[in-house]
């Protein structure tokens, strides 16, 4: 029901991997060597922000503290993203092995998987998997006979809040607070969970770490582009014949991707989920990469029959509901943008007001406290700009002019 049992194909993440091998290899290496391989790989965070993973781990490894924590961010809430579901259900070894490697490298004793509440149905199988790891001494005390290396992983279940995917909101939630983002700095790498140095990594980032440790950073960076090394798991949904999770090298063109998944008469591609940007046909030769069209993995495809204003309204309703409400630009701004869309629907708008709303969107990008409000205007601005003919000028059957 939730897994497609087919063998998945991919050059990096879905390549061959033997359970526990990253842990074995890591324990035979020095901590600095592991960090060196990570730096060599140029791996960047796969959640969307794209922070270099080696830098994050070096900062936590270098910190002096009583306790350190490694958190796996499995609060996969971005509309159109489901790659973490596939990784956790079908490839848990990649994720958990990397957490143990992280524990060793960072000097952390505790790993926590922050699993979104909607994924509660996975909790039992993940816990069984962790129990099996304990039996095989891949978790627990003196792991694989390494004297003094103790590490264990627990699962923390979220309770239905999109904003908790933001790392400081996630930490607040784990501390028993409302999931409201913190002011940064300080960053979690020095003041994280319980005020201790904490590395928060996306599920897919960790999966990549397991491969890098076993196969080297040089191997990893053979894939992808110079600035975006390795591959990306893409969650592809919408109007296409073969939706699902695909592993493709960074640098793949949107048009190549559409062909691969059997998308026809495509009008728009939303890259990066509701908080991403919406590309029109003229931009389908752009590539997926941190330096071009960046994405945490969500690709949603819309064909000619879709009403883009309706799509945008769905996104903005989502943000109004999920804004945590602590900062004004996001709390009020998203409501104003949604009201603007409703005015367009009713035909009660002026172009000068729409322009003001776009300005408001740009202000939100700068003034909001966390990634939610900083990115929610992206779809508003890109859809109104790229599909203005349809929405305002009654071209191609648009109905709001």
């Amino acid at each position, binding site marked *: 029901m939730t897994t497609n049992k087919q063998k998945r194909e991919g050059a990096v993440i879905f390549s061959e991997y033997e359970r526990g091998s990253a842990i074995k290899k890591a324990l035979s290496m020095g901590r600095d060597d592991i960090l060196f391989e990570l730096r060599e790989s140029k791996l960047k965070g796969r959640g969307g922000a794209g922070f270099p993973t080696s830098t994050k781990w070096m900062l936590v490894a270098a910190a002096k503290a009583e306790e350190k924590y490694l958190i796996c961010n499995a609060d996969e809430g971005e509309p159109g*993203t489901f790659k973490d579901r596939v990784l956790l259900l079908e490839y848990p070894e990649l994720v958990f092995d990397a957490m143990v490697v992280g524990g060793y490298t960072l000097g952390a004793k505790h790993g926590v998987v922050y699993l979104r509440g909607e994924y509660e149905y996975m909790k039992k199988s993940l816990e069984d998997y962790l129990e099996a790891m304990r039996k095989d001494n891949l978790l627990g005390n003196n792991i694989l006979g390494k004297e003094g290396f103790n590490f264990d992983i627990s699962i923390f279940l*979220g309770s239905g809040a999109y904003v908790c995917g933001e790392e400081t909101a996630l930490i607040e939630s784990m501390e028993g607070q*409302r999931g409201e983002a913190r002011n940064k700095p300080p960053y979690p790498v020095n003041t994280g969970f319980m005020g201790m140095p904490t590395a928060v990594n996306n599920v897919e980032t960790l999966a990549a770490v397991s491969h890098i440790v076993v196969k080297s950073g040089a191997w990893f960076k053979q894939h992808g582009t110079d600035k975006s090394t390795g591959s990306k798991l893409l969650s592809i*949904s919408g109007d296409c014949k073969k939706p699902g999770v695909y592993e493709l090298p960074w640098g793949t063109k949107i048009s190549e991707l559409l062909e691969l998944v059997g998308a026809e008469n495509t009008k728009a591609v939303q890259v990066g989920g509701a908080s991403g940007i919406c590309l029109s046909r003229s931009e389908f030769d752009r590539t997926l990469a941190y330096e071009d069209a960046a994405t945490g993995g969500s690709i*949603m495809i819309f064909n000619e029959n879709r009403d883009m204003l309706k799509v945008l309204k769905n996104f903005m309703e989502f943000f109004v509901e999920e804004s945590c409400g602590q900062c004004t630009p996001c709390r009020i701004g998203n409501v104003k943008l949604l009201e603007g869309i409703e005015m367009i629907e009713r035909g009660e708008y002026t172009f000068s007001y729409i322009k003001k709303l776009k300005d408001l969107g740009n202000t939100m990008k700068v003034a909001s406290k966390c990634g939610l409000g900083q990115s929610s205007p992206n779809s508003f601005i890109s859809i109104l700009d790229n599909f203005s003919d349809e929405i305002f000028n009654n071209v191609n059957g648009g109905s709001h002019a």
Partner: protein
Amino acid sequence: MLVLEKNAITEEIEESIKLHGNNRSALIPILQDIQRKHSHISDFAQQEVARLLDIHPVEVYSVVSFYAFLNTKPKGRNIVRLCQTITCDLQGKAAIAKAIERELNCKFGETTQDKKFSLEFANCLGMCDQGPAMIVNDKVYSHLTPEKAVQILSNIK
């Protein structure tokens, strides 16, 4: 509420605390336990959690009211969450919602009179490749049609 019921809730919370600890970071797991068992977290339960964790009740209320999956008002025995986000929406969420509403004679956002079901819309459930999708309690159902969705609910006790 009867004194006996109150004592039972207090005992449950104490059990939860044994499992999760009595520090603040145990708050959400404790609240989740209560939610799972009673389909909501009553004022009394919130006060008891606050007392046992030695924090102010308003702190507990502020957390309960923040999270979509924690409720202060009683819900039905089964919670139906139909995904309303774009891909499921485009794949026919509205028709499914209408079919369920007709069948159960209950609107989304409400609870059936017999307290068997609460109907809710949820944001992206991460099943976009197999939509439309819904979660009933902790089970996920994908590739829904109006008929299939109603069938699934009629099989639930």
